[in-house]
């Protein structure tokens, strides 16, 4: 276990703070590692769905990372992927059940994508690459970092898509808030019409692509050689 940090290190040492900040930008799971794209494309039509999805992934990631990290010296090597899968799957089932009980409408809209968190590569990736070789503290931070890295992309993409696709943004607890003046719309004699393409999955890919573009033009080190 060479990657394990020294015992005296504080939870918020420089190295640990990097665990939090790196996934937000230079090693972002979606834009740099291009993991977890499937759900990012599918559930970013509305902000509200994206928020719930982000929270679900964050919960599963934190739970999975901490549990696997606590058990890292006990898990038999030969079945470690199965063990990780069982832990992730149980956490996802708990999330699904809780959503069904407390957020039935959103649970219906997210439908299969909550279940598909099990196969979200970010989660298995972090368990295998980080939690299995690190203490619970850093694993917890790593989970928050990566979860937030996933979340902010989802939030940005969903805000762009909902604003231009539906002309409104669904704020949790407030329903859809219409930001654009109603007299702008063609149906009310104005000049503006919602872009229906924004509602369709391809525009999520384009939006993610634009974020990747901006990110790489700001930090040239991220650009691949060929």
């Amino acid at each position: 276990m060479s990657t394990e940090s020294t015992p005296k290190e504080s939870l918020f040492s420089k190295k640990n703070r990097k665990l939090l900040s790196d996934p937000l930008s230079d090693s972002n799971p979606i834009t740099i590692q291009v993991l977890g794209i499937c759900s990012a494309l599918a559930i970013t039509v509305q902000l509200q769905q994206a928020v719930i999805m982000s929270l679900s992934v964050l919960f599963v990631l934190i739970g999975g990372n901490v549990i696997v990290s606590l058990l890292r010296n006990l898990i038999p090597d030969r079945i470690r992927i199965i063990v990780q899968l069982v832990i992730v799957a149980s956490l996802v089932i708990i999330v699904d059940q809780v959503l069904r009980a407390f957020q039935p409408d959103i649970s219906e809209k997210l439908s299969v994508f909550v279940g598909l968190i099990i196969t979200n590569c970010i989660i298995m990736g972090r368990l295998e690459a980080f939690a299995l070789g690190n203490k619970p503290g850093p694993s917890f931070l790593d989970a928050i970092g990566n979860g937030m890295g996933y979340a902010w992309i989802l939030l940005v993409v969903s805000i762009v898509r909902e604003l231009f696709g539906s002309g409104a943004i669904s704020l949790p607890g407030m329903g859809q808030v219409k930001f654009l003046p109603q007299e702008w719309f063609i149906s009310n004699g104005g000049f503006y019409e919602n872009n229906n393409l924004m509602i369709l999955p391809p525009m999520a890919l384009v939006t993610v692509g634009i974020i990747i573009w901006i990110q790489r033009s700001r930090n040239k080190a991220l650009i691949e050689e060929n």
Partner: protein
Amino acid sequence: MAINKNSTGYTFTFAILMVVIVGTVLAFTAMSLKDRQAANAADKKMMDILGAIGVDANRSNASELFAEYVTERIAIDLSGKEVDRRSGALDMKDKSDPFSIDVQRDYRGSVKAAAKANKDDIAGLKSALSGANLTFPLFRCNSPEGKDVYVVPVVGSGLWGPIWGYVALESDMQTVYGAKFDHKTETPGLGAEIKETMFTEKWPGKRMNASGPVLFEVVKGGAPTSDYQVDGITGGTITSKGVGEMVNRTMAIYASYFKSQTQASAQR
């Protein structure tokens, strides 16, 4: 460490322990949330029934509006005989209430296989189901315009998974008053469109075909030629067919009950 982590015994012990712990946790979660989930499902059912008669309900007012518009909850058996009729307040805990009949479970359990084996053969379907001791629910409603309307739950199969819905008939038990459909996993933009008003708005005014073996059809391509046909969804052929199949099959089962009802009211 004294224990050999790579031994088969350790691996097995770990796996067994893990499964037992995980199983317990999940069972506990499911049990403790069951009541809330059941209440949510009941609200959803009420919203769908109300949707079929054109009442737009949400989760907070569903039970209130249901009590206002749905006057009677009826159950019939396979031969079309009425076996139960309730009115007044709905008690969720009363599992014998027609509202609690789980048509989706019945469909998965016996109707689906029987319908597949007896395609377009209602007599065969009925005899195949005769042992299953099924009851079929029916909701008598007072529509917003004050009409006497009967809401029939329908269940069937789409392309990927289950589809279901509610068809409201006027008091002649022939004319469609309204309809509402839903699905679990149909393709967004294609089969999933059965959920949208774009599809359901074509239903009011259609009539069950009293003369032919086919009571109702969802047809492909172009305008429907008869008033027992409704235009299907482009690109959602199998889902559209599924909708037609479930409506036709369910109405055939209810037909003898409807016949007895209309005859009784004619004599009155």
